């Protein structure tokens, strides 16, 4: 017949060993209580346009559009800061423009613009004066998307903003394509409106057009030509 005496110690041993193993491995490890900060590796918080009159190196101004993030990496609830996103340009004038991008969440502040220059072959800036009589290079927001503040949605109509933007730098793709980190703004007659600036990320698909890829940064500036 079956002998219970033979089993019990073994059963007890195994149950005990298993329990000990559980406790041994599971306890005294509280790593989860240390919370790592939320880091967005590909964050861009700030865009600056440095605009210099081509005829006068001292006639220079900067405009800044900024969207900071909270502790979970989401846009702060107050929304973007566009109080300094204003340009006042002279009519019928040519300006040299440098676009700067920053990540202010890193300490020290990281110059994303310099890195975009390194990765120029897969990035492209697009500029859209609003209102405009031109065919739209950047499609108007669809769905319930909106223009970046301060540009109202839908975009204003009426007298166009007399601003022509030319991208002056080129990447090193086999057919070099414009990048847009340096540009020329040519103003026409006095007018007011907005300028939308979009950075597109176009890995392996950059062809000079807007559509391929996805948006890295989308900012708006208020422009007065007088």
């Amino acid at each position: 017949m079956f002998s219970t005496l033979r089993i019990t110690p073994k059963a007890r041993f195994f149950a005990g060993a298993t329990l000990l193993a559980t406790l041994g491995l599971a306890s005294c490890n509280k790593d989860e209580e240390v919370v790592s900060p939320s880091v967005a590796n590909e964050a861009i918080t700030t865009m600056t346009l440095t605009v210099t009159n081509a005829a006068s190196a001292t006639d220079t101004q900067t405009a800044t559009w900024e969207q900071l993030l909270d502790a979970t990496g989401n846009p702060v609830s107050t929304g973007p800061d566009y109080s300094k996103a204003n340009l006042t340009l002279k009519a019928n004038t040519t300006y040299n423009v440098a676009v700067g991008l920053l990540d202010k969440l890193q300490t020290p502040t990281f110059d994303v613009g310099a890195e975009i220059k390194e990765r120029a072959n897969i990035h492209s800036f697009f500029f859209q004066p609003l209102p405009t009589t031109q065919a739209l290079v950047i499609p108007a927001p669809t769905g319930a998307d909106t223009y970046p503040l301060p540009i109202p949605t839908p975009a204003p109509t009426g007298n166009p903003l007399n601003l022509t933007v030319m991208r002056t730098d080129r990447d090193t793709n086999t057919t070099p394509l414009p990048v847009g980190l340096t540009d020329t703004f040519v103003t026409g007659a006095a007018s007011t409106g907005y300028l939308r600036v979009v950075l597109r990320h176009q890995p392996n698909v950059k062809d000079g057009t807007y559509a391929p890829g996805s948006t890295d940064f989308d900012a708006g500036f208020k422009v007065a030509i007088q």
Partner: protein
Amino acid sequence: MRLLVLALLLGGQPWRAVAQVPAAGPGCALSLAGRISDQRTGEPLPGAVLRLAETSAAEAADPDGHYHFHQLCAGQYHLHVSFVGYAEQVLVVDVRGALNKDIKLRADAKQLGEVRVEGARQTVPLISQSQTTLSGPALQQTRGLNLAESLKGITGVYSIQTGPTISKPVIHGLYGNRVLILNNGVRQEGQQWALDHAPEIDPFTATRLTVIKGAASIRYGADAIGGVVLVEPAALPDTAGVSGEVNLVGMTNGRLGAGSAFGQGAIPADTARGGGRGLGLLHGLSYRVQGTLRRGGTARSANYYIQNTGLQEQNYSLALGYHRGIVNTELFFSRFDTKIGIFSGSEVGSVTDLLAAIDRDRPLTADQFTYAIKRPYQAVVHQLFKAKATVALPADSRVEATFARQTDARSEYGDQLPFNPALGDVPDLFLSLTTHTLDVAYLTSAARPWSVTTGVSGMTQANIREYQFLIPNFRNYGAGAYVLGKHRGERLTLEGGLRYDYRWLRAFFTDVTTGKITQPTTIYQAVTGTLGGLLDLGHGLSLATNLATAWRPPTVNELYSAGVHQSAASYEIGDPTLTKEQAYNTSASLLYSGQKLEGEVGGYVNYIHNYLYLQPALRYIRTVRGAYPVFDYTQANALFKGLDARVSYRPVARLTFTSAASLLWAYNYTAADYLIYAPPNRWQNSVRLNLGRAESAGRLRQSYVGFSNVFVARQSRPPASGDYAPAPAAYDLWGAEAGTILRAGRQVFDLSLTVSNLFNREYRDYLNRFRYYTADVGQNIQLRLRVPF
């Protein structure tokens, strides 16, 4: 006389386990039945154990000595027949039709008194629920595919996809955390926070994949609201010698290659099985070593490549068994390591980009093939260590204790490198989950009319995150206790059970307003139950009905997530006040098994109280990349009901027609709307012709050809809001298959060819989340070779 633990451990189930038998699949509708008796006296031998080596299916003879195997594919099988006190017999049977084979066993004095513990396998605890097992040839036809794709052909089972490389199983319309996966008897605890988090399992480790359809919390604990997937390896060998198998798979689509092999052996304790006495304590040892490599490049839809959809997977597992006296111990370790490319055209910033992508006929990405995987991609490593001890007790009962430790590390790489080169090539998201579980169960003899399974389980789990915020760090404790009883009568088997579960969850994250670490705690508990029966109506008919409840506590992402989900182009907000989700599931199925006709028709109703889901908030949050629609985690009362039907007709022995339909209706009563990603209705048809005559021994003896067609209707009941594009049109895909078994001396080569999407049709599937961006995969010719040794 010593204890008879054999029948119990092998089958774990009584006679007439109709629903547990192997493999559905085209042409797999044959049956093998008969009676087992004592050669000398002619008396029936109830409880004698029959095992089909090829499918690992096991059955015990009923009180009259009858046995039945159903849903077999045509082919040659090795039938092992054993009973304590009798010499084991191995019969070679050629199954061509409904085969009746009576078996006579010879009493063996040598065997009397020997206690043998046959490979204690994970078995399905409930027989009154609808369930389907893939094993043997039916499983062989899915080799090289991922877990969810392997199960997709089963009625009532679907897969929800994120492009061609990432799939999750869907059972009766439920998926994700509502489908519990048991990997080698251990609850799979992976990162399951989103639809693009596929189960971290290598199907090559399994010789049986079983799907239990319907709520099944009772045995496995919380979460099994939709069903359970059992991934079961074969039992470790118990006879002397080394054996193994090599599997090679090549596919044209994605130029995917997969190879998997295992080797196994044993030093039996039992001289009758070839063991000696010379190796002392080593007797009783058995082992298996298994490894898989899988490489794939860019998948191709009918007309273009789906860029960056390669995959690289390398997995291995080690198993060690030791059987001495009444104790059977098993150690198991497995490592799953995968790198999966994500279609680059799915990286949309805002909803504007998404809508533009939907408007395009084809993506703007490059149309070329490569094996290279670039950003965006996922890299996942899942490791499982398991230790299990089974102790045989008097009266055919036993105690099982299973301890498991799992780690799951998931890295998600976004579409570009961090801008700051000082950060290096780091992921955008990293999550590391460590889980320890301990289960102890007591099982009484299944050979008696009354049998009971009772047990307790405990779990502790910790998750640590880095980089972006998707879910917070957390600590999770769980405990449960259950009792399951079964009474087996002449024609009616009744079963029922009760279970209590407790869950404690504490999250750790930085509060946005205070900047300090907050650690909210939630506690959930629930009692679940089940009641069911299986009635043998005679004439090959049987009826199974089941009433079950199941529950699921809210997960951390449902409670605390906050932020953009890039691949879903959505902004998801958790709700810390959510309560548990409770399912009330009823199902009934009628099974018929006759000479020419065989089939199963089952209906189910699953009412889910406080169903947790993402509800469109109908507002947008604007980031610097554009606007994202906001979705709130919320709760509603939802109803899932449907019908699964499968019929096989064999007008002549060599020809089999199979038709299967899966119908589902899912409705959200609280929001008075349909539910998103409810699988559309599906109708599968196939015909298979065995080329050889059953009695002939020619070269074509085990060769077959077949054609199949799957029709997937348009989802005509999409939700009114929450989807970006209308449900895609209905489609039907043709498939073809052929296979044969070649022999060179004693060596067997099992060769098969399958073509899916035969006519390279361009289509989009409602359950593929990348249907917004790209068509689904086109023609795929798959060649498979299995070499057992």
